[in-house]
């Protein structure tokens, strides 16, 4: 089972509801393409909803870091929403939890973009 993603637009923010596996191979490639396409369209505020991600490995974590760096370098913001316990624990173990802006409430996550964009 690979990764699936559904995109929603909430104001200027692209919410990406992701499910399945972000692992070396198909899952990572799909995610990389997705972020590349959004940046290509000028959409630089991305909220990744990871609620239905069932598995993420070291390559998947690397892909999240890569996406974060690419979006930041383009002057945008990439935030994470609804981490499962497994993903939460992996980000804690790898000390990346503090690198990402992590939310468990979509409305608040969206609000945090608006505040940042309007500041």
């Amino acid at each position, binding site marked *: 089972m690979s990764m699936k993603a559904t995109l929603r637009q909430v104001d200027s923010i692209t919410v990406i509801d992701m499910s399945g596996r972000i*692992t*070396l*191979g198909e899952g990572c490639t799909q995610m990389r393409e997705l972020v590349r396409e959004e940046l290509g369209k000028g959409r630089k505020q991305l909220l990744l909803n990871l609620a239905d991600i069932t598995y993420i*490995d*070291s390559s998947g974590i*690397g892909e999240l*870091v890569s996406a*974060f760096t690419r979006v930041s370098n383009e002057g945008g913001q990439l935030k994470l929403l609804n981490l499962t316990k497994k993903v939460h624990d992996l980000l804690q173990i*790898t000390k990346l939890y503090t*690198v990402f802006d992590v939310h468990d409430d979509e409305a608040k996550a969206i609000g945090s973009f608006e505040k940042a964009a309007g500041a």
Partner: protein
Amino acid sequence: MTVEASVVEVVLESDLKNVEVAEEITRRISDTAGFDEEDQHKIDMAVHESVINAIWHGNKNDPSKHVWLRFEMYSDRLEIRVRDQGNGYDPSRLLDPLAEENLLNVSGRGIFLIRTFMDEYRVEKIAGEGTEVILVKRLNSNNPAQSRRNGP
């Protein structure tokens, strides 16, 4: 006295599609061995990362090469051997993924996760054959679920 182990051996072709096969086998074996769900996931991830390293780095994604998996179930631990046909690596030369300057590196977390999730991790070079990674996870006798499964 000889300590008997239950042994399961599997040979996989070097194809990333087989990583999920290795995971499924690992989950069944770690469940049978009596590990709780959290430890099963840790063992699963350690095998996942090891098999990917074997296919990707060891066998260079060459489908004509193989990965050998050997599970040895003892009363107090599970030992897993993952062997590839590559030249191996020196784990001590890997960058620390938790160092400030490496935090945003895209790669370099696989071995770290294996070490974090397992009780023992060793790499052995097998002359003329390849490299074997040995993973050990001990059953925690303080865990009531595991104690029940293994009896008094």
